[in-house]
């Protein structure tokens, strides 16, 4: 019998057999025609293995109120001004499944694995119907959150790490992944300024950390941040200090993106 014991958690045989999970953004140079093969994290979608893409995938991760959408919008505007075709995407936005997730979440009887698979299905739908076609057409795809949030959520909820990593093995390795790192203490104020209340799931109320929503939020966000820290090297996440003023964070992100696109040209 195979195991789920923590001692073996990172001793995944699969990781030995296939290219390791990205330790840095892939540096696939254009091969004359500017077409590259799709690079998947795991087993991928075997039926798409011969597909070629021209575009780039850039991911902005970070908790709610970390400034993700503000920065995503600014980046998109700048890229478009520079003449790039840009497609914005995010979680829970598939035509097929997003409504189902909203219904499922409002129904507290839904299990953690079910919800995780729901999100995975939503993501797969967007990947195949939006992201990959856009990459084929040479777009810069700007993803407001990607699988790392989903993996972190699973881990915090006690789902086996290797199960989640296998599940998301169908996803593409992005070219750049940024994580907006904001202190939970700072974050909570930003949330209050934005909504004047905390979100049930974003406060981890479903896992029963504390009856006190404020305390629960802080503990949950710290746990989530720790999960991102753990994924940093494996997935090549670039941590961006999100506690700084918007302008500074923006300049930091734009600088890194420009440098990447120059190199990739």
């Amino acid at each position, binding site marked *: *019998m*195979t195991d789920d014991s923590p001692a073996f958690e990172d001793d995944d045989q*699969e990781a030995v057999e296939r290219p390791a999970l990205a330790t840095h953004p892939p540096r696939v140079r254009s091969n004359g025609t500017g077409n590259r093969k799709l690079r998947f994290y*795991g*087993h*991928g*979608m*075997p*039926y798409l293995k011969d597909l070629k893409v021209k575009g780039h995938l850039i991911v902005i991760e970070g908790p709610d109120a970390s400034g993700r959408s503000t920065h995503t919008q600014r980046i998109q505007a700048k890229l478009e001004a520079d003449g790039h075709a840009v497609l914005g995407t995010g979680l829970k936005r598939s*035509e*097929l*499944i997003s*409504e*189902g997730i909203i*219904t*499922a979440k409002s*129904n507290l*009887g*839904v*299990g*953690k*694995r*079910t919800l*995780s*698979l*729901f999100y*995975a*299905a939503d993501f*797969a*739908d967007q990947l*195949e*119907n939006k992201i990959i076609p856009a990459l084929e057409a040479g777009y810069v795809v700007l993803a407001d959150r990607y699988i790392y949030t989903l993996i972190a959520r699973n881990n915090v909820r006690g789902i*086996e790490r*290797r*199960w989640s990593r*296998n*599940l998301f*093995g*169908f996803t593409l390795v992005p070219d750049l992944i940024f994580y907006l790192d904001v202190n939970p203490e700072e974050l909570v104020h930003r949330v209050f300024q934005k909504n004047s209340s905390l979100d049930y799931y974003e406060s981890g109320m479903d896992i029963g950390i504390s009856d006190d929503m404020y305390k629960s939020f802080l503990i949950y966000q710290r746990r989530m941040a720790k999960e991102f820290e753990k994924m940093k090297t494996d997935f090549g996440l670039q941590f961006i200090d999100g506690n700084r003023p918007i302008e500074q964070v923006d300049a930091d992100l734009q600088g890194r993106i420009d440098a990447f696109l120059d190199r990739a040209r």
Partner: protein
Amino acid sequence: MSQKKVKGRALLPRVEARKGTQGADARAGRLIAVEGVDGSGKSTQLHLLEQWLRHQNLKVFKTEWNSSETVKEITSRGKKKGLLTPTTFSLLHATDFADRYERNILPLLEAGYFVLADRYVFTAFARDIVRGCDPSWVRKIYSYAARPDLTFYFRVPVDVAVSRILAGRPKLKYYEAGMDMNLSNDPYESYRIFQGRIVEQYEAMVETEGLVAIDANRGIEEQQFEVREKAKRLFGPETLNMAAPTAMKDNDRR
């Protein structure tokens, strides 16, 4: 039952899967699944088994593939619009299964029920692999699920199964016929090829997953006799404690 290890994470042995959550009684409950292509007669056999178990005053719960309310709606919408790819098709069925597993299958097993599954993870293994998903990926997605105590595979020649289905149904649905795989432009031909490939997967799993093959080319009663004989072996001493008390009361009242 012999279980050979297959590539990818194997299903959890039932005892292991059940004690995972809150130290529940590992000996409680029994899980019986039926598998086979459409038209193999598996649902009829499961129904008869269910009636028999109920007649013994056992606590029984039956669960069917693709029947979770929230997920079913999305799957059928996706099917109607022809939006499904092998990966989303696979993930939606995995979501459906997880919902039924987390809500019903596992808690009922812990409570000591006979859980009867009309199709189980082996259906996903067969269909998703035929559709082109990676076999190891699919198997690992279901790795948290308990291995059934008994999985019957109703073995029937493809032509027999196909003609049983086509006799009662003049028109095949797009995904049902496997039209998404471009096997043939003719839905009936496509369906035949698709079912044939599913059978190949099942046949391989008889060895690798320990499916118990039942010759489904025989009469219904003959098959049911064999099914009951095999199911009987799952009755342990503790089965006596599994009798549903409410059922007894109902009988007394009559």
